[in-house]
């Protein structure tokens, strides 16, 4: 299960809309053991593509340091699918960097955003519930 602080959910979706027509991406920081994301790190998609994303490496470094300074850690990544469903693509699976991370996809294909989260371990995709907490 992935738990999202309400501000994280809002920022994540907003960043994805802000990125249109390209894919947007960012990192989630928080309590990895509890599966709770308390901070959204908006990052630049240096792939500059509507089909691919690459988190800006320097922004990843800064997010990692910031999370550490708060006693937390980067626990996952989110990115948008501008016209397809919120399900990991073959590229997402092949390039998933950390089996402990949560992989969130925000689909903007429909009128309302769809947010789904997955664990990707050894090429296997497992969807997990996403809970937006009240505080």
């Amino acid at each position, binding site marked *: 299960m992935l738990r999202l602080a309400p501000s994280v959910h809002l920022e994540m979706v907003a960043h994805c809309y802000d990125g249109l027509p390209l894919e947007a991406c960012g990192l989630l920081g928080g309590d990895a053991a509890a599966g709770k994301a308390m901070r959204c790190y908006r990052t630049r998609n240096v*792939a500059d593509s509507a089909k691919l994303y*690459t988190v800006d490496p320097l922004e990843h*470094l800064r997010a990692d340091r910031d999370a*550490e300074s708060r006693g937390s850690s980067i626990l996952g990544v989110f990115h948008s699918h501008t016209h397809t469903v919120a399900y990991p*693509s073959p*590229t997402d699976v092949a390039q998933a960097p950390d089996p402990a991370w949560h992989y969130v996809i925000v689909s903007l294909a429909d009128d309302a955003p769809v947010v789904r989260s997955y664990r990707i371990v050894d090429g296997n995709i497992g969807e997990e519930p996403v809970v937006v907490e009240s505080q």
Partner: protein
Amino acid sequence: MSVEVRLPTMLRAHAGGAATVQADGETVGQVFEDLAARYPGLASQVITDDGTLHKFVNVYVGDDDIRYLDKLDTKVADGASISILPAVAGG
């Protein structure tokens, strides 16, 4: 030179769970050689068989990506901080 090396979460198991380890070397490459001697299995996740940096790994000395410096020949100062992070990408 003695430097601090910050490890990403998925490499920490190779270093007994440590998030940060100390290593010695004049260059990034030498630091990784020292890491390999101390933590077998860790260096192979970062360096390929032909001795180059894995494509999906980013290495920083301070805020500087070594790909834009001298790659594994990048010199390090005593007390420097090296950060290893995975490339995060997909589609």
